[in-house]
């Protein structure tokens, strides 16, 4: 594999990366899709349903995953992390680290016998820690590839998987590999992570299991989720009074995330709607600063939620305190009552955490990040160009955005990358396009 050559390396196998890879491959480019996790699918594959159409998320992600995985022009490398991208002398060099999975993928048939034999269970990362996972397992039902992965942090090296495996695929001695591939262009679709649930100390998430992240609620709402129904984590009680706290990690200078994370309003409304279906008697309250329902069909979705009886309260949530019965007391400043401060009690609280970047441009691409930490977009007409020759980006790598906007932008990045390759092949010098590297925001 060392020295392998591709037209384009797409970094990140979430929905943006999958879409970019598909668009490039359909234009006959040879694509390498690199994913750090053991399966492609990104955040989207773990969601329950998507706003505003309420499509089942698995149902619209799996066909794209499958199409990319089986495309004759796409190679997919999972458990592979990009360390550095170099752009020099007209060539992109991508330095990769292939993490050991302790399973030989050429032999594993995904039968899961190792998983059934493994005696160790740990909190399932796919279920956001709510369910249990074996120390060796196929990561989740519709993971792609369907190959077992051993987690060395929990493995007790008992050898049960080795005995159970019908193809002798388990390799305790597998080691990390480092390799470098060359490509004409690179598309970065490295996505986002949520900032820590415990980040705002006044919300006391560390002191209550019933203050949960929106991704945990997605799993609780998924039909194939950890419990098969919505239960609160501390005691398995069916929640009867749920609070959503918006902007709990965004639009907040004090935690260094002054920007809007863009999708929280809508997924919170969606989650409240799905909860009102799952728990018809539950009271559902969304505490907000502004409801940002700006996309196609979003405002109508918001108005439907209001008509369904979901409470929208314009308020600042000052603090959250655990109280008796594993419940939570929210201290809120009710804006529509002249700033009156009230204590509101809920039995489950969802914090809309902020979306922050994963990729570090200064370390991995030798280029400074934008002020918000995401990749820069220095050219106002080629918005998916990162400012580094031959390196493009899409989706949340360029700042938070919803699935629709990410998919469209992925198509755009594929177009720019393909265009770059075409110009280069024609002997043009695409790197010499108008230089607009000044910081776009005036000071």
């Amino acid at each position, binding site marked *: 594999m060392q020295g392998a050559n591709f037209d384009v390396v797409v970094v990140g196998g979430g929905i943006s990366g999958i879409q970019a890879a598909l*668009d490039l491959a*359909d*234009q006959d480019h040879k694509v390498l899709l690199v994913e750090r996790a053991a399966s492609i699918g990104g955040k989207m594959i773990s969601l329950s349903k*998507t706003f505003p*159409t309420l*499509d089942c998320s698995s*149902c619209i992600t*799996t*066909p794209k995953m*499958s199409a990319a*995985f*089986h495309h004759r022009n796409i190679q997919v490398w999972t458990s592979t992390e990009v360390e550095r991208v170099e752009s020099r002398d007209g060539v992109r060099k991508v330095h990769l680290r292939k993490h050991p999975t302790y399973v030989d993928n050429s032999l594993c048939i*995904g039968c899961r016998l190792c998983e059934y034999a493994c005696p160790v269970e740990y909190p399932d990362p796919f279920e956001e820690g709510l369910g249990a996972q074996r120390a060796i397992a196929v990561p989740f*039902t*519709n*993971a*792609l590839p369907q190959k077992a992965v051993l987690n060395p942090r929990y493995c007790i090296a008992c050898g049960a998987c080795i005995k159970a495996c019908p193809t002798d695929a388990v390799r305790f001695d597998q080691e990390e590999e480092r390799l470098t591939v060359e490509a004409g262009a690179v598309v970065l679709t490295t996505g986002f992570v949520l900032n820590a649930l415990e980040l705002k100390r006044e919300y006391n998430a560390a002191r209550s299991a019933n203050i949960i992240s929106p991704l945990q609620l997605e799993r609780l709402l998924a*039909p*194939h989720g950890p419990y*098969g129904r919505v239960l609160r984590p501390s005691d398995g009680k069916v929640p009867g009074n749920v609070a959503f706290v918006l902007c709990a990690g965004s*639009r907040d200078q004090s935690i260094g995330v*002054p*920007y*809007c994370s863009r999708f929280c309003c809508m997924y919170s409304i969606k989650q409240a709607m799905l909860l009102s279906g799952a728990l018809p008697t539950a009271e559902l309250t969304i505490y907000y600063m*502004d409801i*940002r329902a*700006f*996309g*196609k*069909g*979003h*405002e*109508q979705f918001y*108005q439907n939620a209001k008509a369904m009886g979901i409470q929208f309260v314009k308020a600042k949530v000052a603090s959250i305190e655990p109280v008796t019965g594993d419940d939570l007391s929210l201290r809120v400043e009710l*804006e*529509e009552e*002249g700033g009156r401060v009230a204590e509101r009690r809920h039995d489950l609280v969802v914090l809309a955490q902020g979306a922050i970047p994963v990729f570090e441009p200064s370390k991995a691409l030798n280029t400074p990040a934008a002020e*918000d930490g995401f990749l820069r*977009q220095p050219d*106002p*007409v080629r*918005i*998916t160009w990162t400012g580094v020759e031959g390196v493009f980006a899409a989706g949340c790598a*360029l*700042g938070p955005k919803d*699935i*629709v*906007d990410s998919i*469209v*932008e992925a*198509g*755009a990045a594929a*177009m*720019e990358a*393909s*265009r770059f390759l*075409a*110009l280069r092949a024609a002997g043009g010098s695409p790197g010499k396009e*108008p230089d607009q590297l000044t910081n*776009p925001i005036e000071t």
Partner: protein
Amino acid sequence: MIRGSAQVESVASEPRIGVYVCRCGGNISDVIDTEKVAETIKLVPGVRVSKVHSFMCSEPGQAMIAEDIKKEQLNRVVVASCSPFLHELTFRVAVRRGGLNPYLYEHVNIREQGSWAHHGDPEGATVKAIRLVAAAVHRLYHAEPLEQIRLPSHRRALVIGGGIAGLKAAVDLAAKGVGVVLVEREPELGGRVLGLARLFPTDDSGRAQIDRLVREVCNNPNIEVLTGTVIKGVSGFLGNYDIAVGPALAAGAAGVDVGGAKDKKLSVGAIIVATGHDYYRPSLGEYGFKRYTQVVTMPEFIDLLAGASGDGIQWNGQRIHRIGFMHCVGSRQIEGIHPPQGDGKVNDYCSRVCCTTVLHQAVHAKRRFPNLAVFDFHQDIRTYGRLHEDYYRRASEAGVIFFRFHGDDPPLVEEGVDGFPIQVRLKDWLTWGEEVVVPLDLLVLAVGMVARDNRELVNLLKLPTGADRFFQEVHPKLRPVETSVNGILLAGSAQAPMTIEETLASASAAASKAACLLAHDSVELEPFKARVDADKCIGCGLCFPECAYEGALVRTSVEREGKTVTLAKVNPGLCVGCGACVPVCPTRAIDLQGWTLNQFEAMVDGLLSAPLPSKEVTSESSSHGQTH
């Protein structure tokens, strides 16, 4: 022209059918007893394998099907799962992986039409699922292997609209070696962006961005630009569209220079619709519009501010000291509160760009004229995009004063007192709903974006529009820039309100999709087309008036027993497979490939003869199911 469709071999005599029932991770199996469906369907003749899986669309599910085809020598496959819209193609590909012709496959929807529709009646839903699957099995008894139709295509695209979306799509496609014809109705390229003096978040002028793209367009020999030109006629299909264009205004109209635009015919393979938007036009008296001269729209204000001299903003000879911005004018309208638009509907959508536009203009105005008092009337501040929130912060820091109203109780614009021409009266919900009166010299209405009146184009292209009157994509996530007409794509604000950055992304995405469709010299079409059996056709011509697709049915002369007879023939490129011609044929000479009359009859047999699981579940008990 048609690859392999003439040699429709009948498949191995004995059907060996595999049935695969999907649980959809509970979406189906929480209501329908999927195990029982799979078990019961084994009783239908020809079913060799019948299995259940949690996610049939996942890799293990697909692999299972492909493997069974080889191992059990299956020659037909049924999957009972979600809507075919989502996964019919997925399973056709899986079936082909197993070595079987992908059209020996039948998709049964037991989710949207089963578990979701009948969630209160599990037994009834289970019986219905069994009947639907049995019908599919019977239909497959008569299935024939089909091949996609491959037709040569033009590696050239038509881009309709020379605004920023059309320009961007054109330069992207041309760089890929795809020829482009860019058609613009106006005499000049550039569209609405030309009128924007300062863009957020770059503070560039609109003209600077347009000039750059126009330069690229004009320097590219692959792009032909036709300004002052409109689309007059469209026929054809993916890969082979025939377009007629002509001057935008009737030639010879007195005093109108059409810039030399001529009637012309074009052949293209794909069409990108980049026709943009209009600004909302407030009705007479809406927020004082046209009642008070001091009420202007945002585009008017942008010009006013750009043209303001060093000593301040002047309007109608008056110096402006106090200025207000009204959000959501023509957007987020509520039925019963706002008067309906021309089509009887209100604009219930958010126009997405106005909040940031207001704050961007407010910040700019405050910076140029620090003594200006600026007031903002909003419902929510939707500065969602990258760097947008910055304008909100800077507006607050610059002293812009915010008021918040409820959509069902919009502010009133009244005649002012104490020398102020107008005033805004509202309940302010940044307090406790206190009634406030704000005297102003000028009120700017942040008018929303509305779909253009594209009636002619809609008719020519046969494109669907949504309830918001914008062009409708096939699926917002699966196919966000494609329309239901194969080969026609959407770019920019013709689809929905969007910012310039989002418009550029959408234009490039549409160009990318066009480049995929036109990557080769030919295109492939689905084989579900009408077929005429020349031996049975008597040339009666009854089918012709039924066909709604010009050119899909053509007359062809053949020699028969020494005489020349005129028979019907299908042009598979233009036939959409609607089937309107089939029932009028007196000799059953016309049939739809993949949907033959025999197959329909067999489906009815299947529905009625389906084995039902056990005594307590009968069609009778399900019909007594409670209604709620």
